[in-house]
C-alpha cells in the first residue's frame, strides 16, 4: 500500500534527475562532460551560475506547488493559488514600498516586509470570502482575481508615480531565472523551509479541508491552522517574488493533477506535489532556454502558455467542484 503510493514520487524524481543534468548543461556557454574538472572557467560557470540556477528552479517549483495546495485546503476551493488571490501582488506591494522608503535596506528586511505584506493581503482575501455563500464555488476564485487585479493596479500606479515601472514589470511581474547566480538565490531555501513546515502540519491541513466544524470536533482550533497556512503561503510567495519574481500556474495546476489521481490526504500527496512542481518549472525553464537559443524566454511566459493549457484541460475533465 505505502509502496504503491510512493511510486509517483519515484517516477517524478526519476524525471527530475535527467532534467537537472540537462539544466546544468544547457546555456549560452557550452559545457560538455569532457570539460569537467579540467577547465577552471567551466567549473566557475557551473558553481556560480548553472548549479544555483538549477537548485533555485527546483526549490521554487516545489515550494510554489505546496503553497498552492495549502491555500486550496484553507479556502476549500480548488481554483485558487497565491497568484490569483492577491498574495503575490501584496508581496510585490511590500517590496515596492520598501524600495521606495528605504532603498538601501538589506535583502532580509525586504524579505520580511514582503512576507508581512503578503500575509496582510491574504488575510484580507480570507476575510472577503468568508461571507460568500458556500455553494457558489466559483465566486471564491472570482473574488481572488478581483482582489489581485485591484492590488496589482495599485502597485502599477505607485510604480508609475515613482518611476519604478521597470522594476515592477521586469523583476516582480515576470518570473525568470536567468539572473540567478550564487549569492542571489539562497533565500529560496527559506521558502523551501516554509513549505517543509507544511509537511509537518499535513494532517492539520487535510482536516481543515473537511471544514471548520469537523476540525473543531477533532480537537483542533481551525483559526490556528488557518494562521499556520497563512504563514506558509505568504512566506513562500514573498520569497519567490523577492528572488525570482511571479511565477504563475504552478500552485494551481500541480495540486489539481495530484488531487485528481491521489486525493487530498496531504501526508501522502505533499512529496508528489513538491516533486511535480519542481519537474514542471524545471521543464519550462529548460524549454525557455531552448526556444530562442542562445536568448531566453522567461519561465513565467512558458508557464503561462503550458499552465493555461493544462488548466483548461483540467476544467473540461473535471466538472466545477469545491
Amino acid at each position, binding site marked *: 500500500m505505502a509502496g504503491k503510493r510512493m511510486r509517483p514520487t519515484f517516477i517524478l524524481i526519476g524525471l527530475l534527475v535527467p532534467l537537472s543534468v540537462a539544466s546544468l548543461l544547457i546555456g549560452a556557454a557550452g559545457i560538455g562532460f569532457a570539460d569537467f574538472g579540467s577547465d577552471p572557467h567551466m567549473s566557475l560557470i557551473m558553481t556560480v551560475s548553472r548549479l544555483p540556477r538549477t537548485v533555485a528552479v527546483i526549490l521554487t517549483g516545489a515550494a510554489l506547488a505546496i503553497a498552492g495546495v495549502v491555500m486550496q485546503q484553507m479556502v*476549500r476551493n480548488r481554483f485558487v493559488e497565491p497568484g490569483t488571490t492577491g498574495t503575490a501582488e501584496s508581496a510585490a506591494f511590500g517590496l515596492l514600498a520598501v524600495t521606495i522608503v528605504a532603498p538601501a535596506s538589506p535583502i532580509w528586511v525586504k524579505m520580511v516586509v514582503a512576507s508581512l505584506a503578503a500575509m496582510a493581503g491574504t488575510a484580507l482575501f480570507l476575510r472577503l470570502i468568508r461571507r460568500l455563500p458556500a455553494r457558489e464555488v466559483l465566486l471564491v476564485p472570482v473574488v481572488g482575481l478581483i482582489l489581485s487585479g485591484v492590488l496589482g493596479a495599485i502597485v502599477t500606479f505607485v510604480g508609475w508615480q515613482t518611476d519604478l515601472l521597470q522594476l515592477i514589470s521586469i523583476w516582480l511581474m515576470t518570473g525568470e531565472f536567468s539572473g540567478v547566480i550564487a549569492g542571489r538565490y539562497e533565500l529560496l531555501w527559506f521558502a523551501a523551509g516554509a513549505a517543509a513546515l507544511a509537511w509537518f502540519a499535513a494532517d492539520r491541513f*487535510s482536516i481543515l479541508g473537511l*471544514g471548520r*466544524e*469537523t476540525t473543531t470536533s477533532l*480537537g483542533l482550533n481551525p483559526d490556528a491552522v488557518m494562521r499556520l497556512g497563512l504563514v506558509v503561503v505568504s512566506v513562500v510567495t514573498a520569497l519567490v517574488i523577492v528572488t525570482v519574481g511571479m511565477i504563475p500556474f504552478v500552485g494551481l495546476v500541480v495540486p489539481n493533477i495530484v488531487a485528481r489521481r491521489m486525493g487530498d*490526504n496531504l501526508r501522502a500527496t505533499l512529496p508528489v506535489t513538491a516533486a511535480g512542481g519542481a519537474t514542471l518549472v524545471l521543464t519550462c525553464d529548460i524549454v525557455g532556454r531552448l526556444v530562442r537559443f542562445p536568448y531566453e524566454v522567461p519561465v513565467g511566459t512558458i508557464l503561462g502558455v503550458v499552465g493555461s493549457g493544462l488548466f483548461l484541460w483540467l476544467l473540461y475533465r473535471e466538472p466545477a467542484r469545491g
Partner: protein
Amino acid sequence: MICVEQLSHNVGKTPVLQNISLEIPKGKVTALVGPNGAGKSTLLSLIGRLMPLQTGRISVDGADIVQTPTRDLARMMAVLSQTNTLGSRLRVRELVGFGRWPHHQGRPTNEDEQLIAQALEALDLTTFGDRFLEELSGGQRQRAFIAMTLAQGADWLLLDEPLAALDMAFARRIMAQLAALREAGRSVVVVVHDINHAAAWADHVIAMKAGRIAAQGPPEAVCTSQVLGDIYDMELRVTQIEGKPLVLHHL
C-alpha cells in the same frame, strides 16, 4: 452528565434558543426531537462547541466546554454535524482515520489502526475503504462520517441526524449500534426526525419547539398523541407495539 444552564442563542436578532436549562443523562441514548427550526441542531452544535457560546453555561461530565482545552474535549465527545459538505477528495479509510487524530496527533499506533478497522466493519464499509468519498452514494458517505465519529472512541457521541440519507435497513442498524454503545457504558445524544426511532431506541427523549424545551422524559411520557400533537401542530395517533409507543404520523 451533560449540564446546560440558562442557554440562549441568537442568529442576528432572531432568537434560536431561549433560556434552556437541561440535563442529559450519562450512559443513555437521548433523542432530540422537534419540528424544523426548533433549535435542535443549534443546541447540539453548542454542546459540541462547534459554535461560540453566547449566553449560558454548558459542561460535559463536569468539564466546562469553554474552559476545557478543545483537544481534551475531542477525547470526551465526538460530534457529527449535519453539514458534511465535501470539499476534499479523501478515501473512506483516510476519513475514518482522522477520527483517531485527537488520540494520536499524526502518529497512529496499532491500536488506532484496529479501531479504524472496527469502525469500518461496524458500518459495513470495509470493502469501500480505498474508494474516494465522492464516488460513493449519499448514504454510504453518511456511513463513512458516522464511522469517523465512532472511531473517535469518545464517551459521548453527539450526532445530528445520522439517519438522513440512510435506507431503512441501515437506519435501524445504526440505532441498534448506538444502543449497543450504551451497553458498553457510553452515552449518545442524537437528533432524529423519525419519531419512531426515538420511541423505539431512546431512553430519554427531549422534545423542542421554537427554541424551548417542550417536553422531556422517557419515550412513553413524551411520545403521546397529546404531547406530540402540541409540538408538531398536527393530529396524530399513538399505538403500542412490543411495549414501545408507535406514532402513526403518516395516516
